Structures are given as structure tokens and as C-alpha cells.
């Protein structure tokens, strides 16, 4: 299953708007997408509750994984979101 480790650029981390955009993006793909700490359990990336519940701050690393036909595309899109500063989202 393809996965990547990405540094979260938005200063606020996975909260508020960056989290919203992240979850929205995850929902756009058919693949089952997950996110979590670099070396911990992953949660459903399409769930706002799960994503904000991770408590990820800006500058931290997260692991994202995807399973499905469009897995690589989904990961590309999510990596893009995580690498974009908040005011450019």
C-alpha cells in the first residue's frame, strides 16, 4: 500500500482551515486514505473528527497512506495540501 511521510507546513497544523481542506481533499478520491503520526496508528483521513483528533501541529511529520485505484493521485493531492502554507490554501 503506497504511503508517504510529509512535514506539515501550515503553522496551525491539522486544525481549522488546513484540516478542513485536507479532509475535503481526502473525500475527493475513491481510495481509502489514512493519516497519522510517523510511527503510530493511522486514522481515516476523510473524517474531520479523526483528523483534528490527532492534534498535529505545524512542523510535525505525518504519515499518509492510500489504498485503491487512485491511491497515488490521492497521496499527491494530500501532500500538496500539507505542504501549502495556510494563507495560500
Amino acid at each position, binding site marked *: 500500500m503506497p504511503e508517504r511521510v510529509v512535514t506539515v507546513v501550515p*503553522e496551525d497544523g491539522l*486544525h481549522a*482551515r488546513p484540516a478542513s481542506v485536507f479532509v475535503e481533499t481526502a473525500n475527493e478520491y475513491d481510495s481509502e486514505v489514512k493519516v497519522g503520526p510517523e510511527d503510530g496508528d493511522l486514522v481515516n483521513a476523510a473524517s474531520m473528527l479523526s483528523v483534528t483528533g490527532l492534534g498535529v501541529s505545524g512542523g510535525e511529520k505525518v504519515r499518509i497512506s492510500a489504498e485503491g485505484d487512485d491511491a497515488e493521485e490521492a497521496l499527491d493531492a494530500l501532500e500538496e495540501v500539507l505542504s501549502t502554507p495556510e494563507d495560500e490554501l
Partner: protein
Amino acid sequence: MTERRFEGIGVTPLSGVGTVVWYAPDAELDDPPEPDEVDADAETARFEEARESAREELKAERERTAERVGEDEAAVFDAHVQFLDDPQITDGVSEQISDGLPAEHAVQRTFDRFVEQFEGMEGRMAERADDLRDVRDRLVRVLSGGERVNLAELAEGSVVFAERLTPSDTAQLDPERVAGFVTVTGGRTSHAAIFARSLALPAVVGVGEELNEVEDGAEVVVDGTDGEVIVDPAEETKQAAADEEEVEIRSEPVSTADGVEIEVAGNVGTAADLGPAADRGADGIGLFRTEFLFLDRQSPPDEEEQYETYLEALEAFPDGRVVVRTLDVGGDKPIDYLDLPDEENPFLGERGIRRSLGPDADLFETQLRALLRAAGSDSGGNLAVMLPLVSTVEEVRDARETLDSVAEDLESEGAEYAVPEFGVMVETPAAAFMAPDLASEVEFFSIGTNDLAQYVMAAERGNEHVAELGDYTQPAVLRAVRATVEAAEGTDVWVGMCGEMAGDPDLTELLLGLGLDELSMSAVTVPQVKQAVTETDTEDARKLAEKALSAGTKAEVRRVLTENTQS
């Protein structure tokens, strides 16, 4: 009846009098029926329907909030929609329904589990609990067809009391009918506080559990200046609050009682502040901080983006002056792409104009290009450019040289441009001492009292142990202000003031007596200061300033001011 006073955090310097309306959105549900009486399919359909209605409501409230408060605040509603669609929520509710619960109970139980989980966490995640409660209450209300206190249809003069106010609550409040609000929880940056400031409503937040003692229907004064809530107020308390409340908003420039016109302008930190400043009657912008353009991003804004932003400010005030301060950053600000040094004492380090003439020379040039082009636009005639943290004459000359070379470049490119008014912020003791020499280099001074007080008194802003020392009514600060104004007298240089001091209506007469031509402040106190200007006689003001300048202690300065108000 004796007054009862409650202390909280005042979030706007406004007061209001009104009648308490307790707003308790938590819906109490009856006990659920027996599981075998519940038709799971019907309940699932009800839940789906409720979700759709809630989604429609959220959409409408999002639009209203974007219009009234701003895009940032409106974004909260996007998160609410996401909670509505969250698989953990929808799965949870379906599960509870198939276990035999009606939709409203299923919603409540499912959300409560997550509310508890988030409440146990810290900081931003605890705030999420508020959002979840908000969405839960909305769904339960829709499902039970219940009416809550309708915030859109309150009686005029209502003071809303609540445990907390959520974005959904404030989106419904009709500011015309609400005399203010008070919350048990919350701080200066809570949603309720931001909302109060953008709509200029009197508000006190974070009062604590004691607030629950106050009965519905009680008469109350909300004093946002002192952060006090006064229940069963005495006549004179009400009168004092009403006097303050009655300040009218004057959108025309004002003059003193003896006819001297004084410019009263707004300080602006982001483009979103422009509207409120104009709404409060600011004549122009006395301090347009440009840092917001540079913060929270990976690379500096280009010339075009800056040009557009400056144009926006100029167009918001077609008849008023717009003073733009060039980039003022130092080691205390996190801007990755600038590679700001880690300094022992960033407030005395490489910051403001020092960086613009040093490591950030390219940025400075780009900013000046954008500014000169904005000055050359149709609405650019009122643009002024101001340098931060000037301490020597050379800095001003070097900056002027850059400005001239930028003008030459634009000329040779055939670009539309104009050279704007050029001035300095007086915020270091050096600038105040050198004001007579600086006066022949510039067209204006603007005294930045927050930093001037900090540097004159060697008392760090933000450090509460030296807050008394760093107060702007210290005689040393007053004398530095006077020295600056005096240096400009008899020249064409005008002198303004931006900073907290300029926005203190109790000091307006003194400041006019000290000889200031312009006062610039946070939008919210513009009406009070304009009012104070109209009540001032310049000759009396001059005498007041003389007395204050001869005072040797801060207590004496304060006494001079108090005696003046009483006479």
C-alpha cells in the same frame, strides 16, 4: 437595590445598558421510548432530513458571517458541515438508531462521546468541542422541532448572557437589537470577542461561574472598557454608561470647538480592518501595518500583490490620507524566508528600517515600487509612506535615496507612478532628540507611542512587572512627544500620533494641547476621540498641556488630567 459587580475581560472599549436575556442552547431531551417502539428506518430518514436542513442553515449563516465579520470567521461553518458529514458521526448515529434509539437521542449520544474526548485535550482541540456542541445542538433542535431563544428576534436593548456564544449563535444576533453580551467562559481571542470587536458591541467575556447568579430580566450595565458587568446598576452608573454609548459616529472630518480641523484616522493591521475603520468614521488610515502581507507564507508577496493591497486601502478612503508603514519586522517575528537572526534582544536588534537598508534591501525596493505605483494611480494622491524605527538622519537619507532610484527606474520603464508623501515614525528617543534635524528631511512625523514609551522608559511592552513604568502618561514620554511636535512647529511638517495613546479619549485634549495634527487609533475608539475633539478648545488644551508638561511625576500628570475633567 445595591449594585452587584462581576469582573471579566472587556473586549471592546464600549459600554451598554440593557436587560439580561439568558441564552441556554442546550436542549433537554425526554427519556427515549422503548427500543421496540422505534422504527429504525423512519429514524434514519429523519436523521438524513435533519442533516439536510442543518446543511442549508449552515450555508446561510456562513454567507451572513462572511459578509458581516469576515472570511476567516465564516470558515468555521465549513468545519461544521464537515462534522455533519463525518463518517464517525454518521456511522455512530446509524449504529445508535439500529440499537433502538430515536434520531435525536442517537445524535446526542454520538456527539457527546466526541465532545468529551475533545474536551479532555488542550488548546485548539478543546475549542473543537465547542464546534461539536454547536453542531449537535443544531441537529437536536431541528429533529425535535424545538425553538430556542431566537437570537434574531430579541427585544431591543437585550444583553445576551450565555455560557459561551458559538459562531452559529453570533451569526444570528441582530446587532441593532443587542445592547451587548456577557459570557461565562472565553478569552480575548475567543470567537465571541472577535465578533464583538468587528461589530463594535459592548462585551465582557470570561466572567466565570458567578455569572449564573444573575437572573433573567435583570437590568445590567456592560462595561467593556473596565471588563465589568454591573447588575441592578445605580442611576449614575447607568448614566455614565449611556453617555459613553451615545457617542455618535461622525463620518465627516471634525474640528475643535474653536474650529481647528483635526484628522482622526484608523490603524489597520489587515485589509479586513478597512471596512470597520470606515464604518467607525475614520477620516483615513494613519497607520497601515504591512507585516500581514509578509507573515504566514513561504515567500514574500510580489510587487503586484502589494500594489493591489495598497490600492484597496486607498480606494476604501478616497478622501482621506492613507499612511503606509514599510515592513517592520525583527527577530521576534517568525518569517522563515527572511532568515531573521536569533537575537539576544530583538527589540534593540536589527529590525524595521535597519533591515530595509540592510539584509532586506530587495524587499524594501519591491515595496517602494508597489507604493510609488499605487501613488500614481487615480486614487493615489493621498498616499503617504512612513519608515519604522528611525534613529538617525542617515537612515532617512539612505531610504530617500532608494526611493529616488526606484522612481528613476519606474520613469525609465515608462510606468505610471508618483512620489508619495514621505515621513518617519518617531518611536525611539534618538528620533525625538533629532526631530529638528529630521524635520528638514521629511514631510511628516507620526509618533508611535507604544514603542516610544517602551524605549524612553526602557520598560518592555508586554512585561507586566514594568507596565506602570512603560505607561504613556509618564512625564518623560509626554516631554518626548512635545519635543517632537516642537521641532516641527514653524515648518511644513505635520505631526500625527499612532498607538494606544492616540485612541484614549481621556487624553485627546492633552494631545491637541501638545500640538498634534492627526490622531490614529484602532477603529473602535474613533467615535469617542472625534467626540472629544469637538469638545476641545485649543487654548484651554494648550494650558492643560503646559501644566502636564511641568508635572514631575506620573501621579501629578494624572492629577492634572483628573482636575481638568472635573472643572
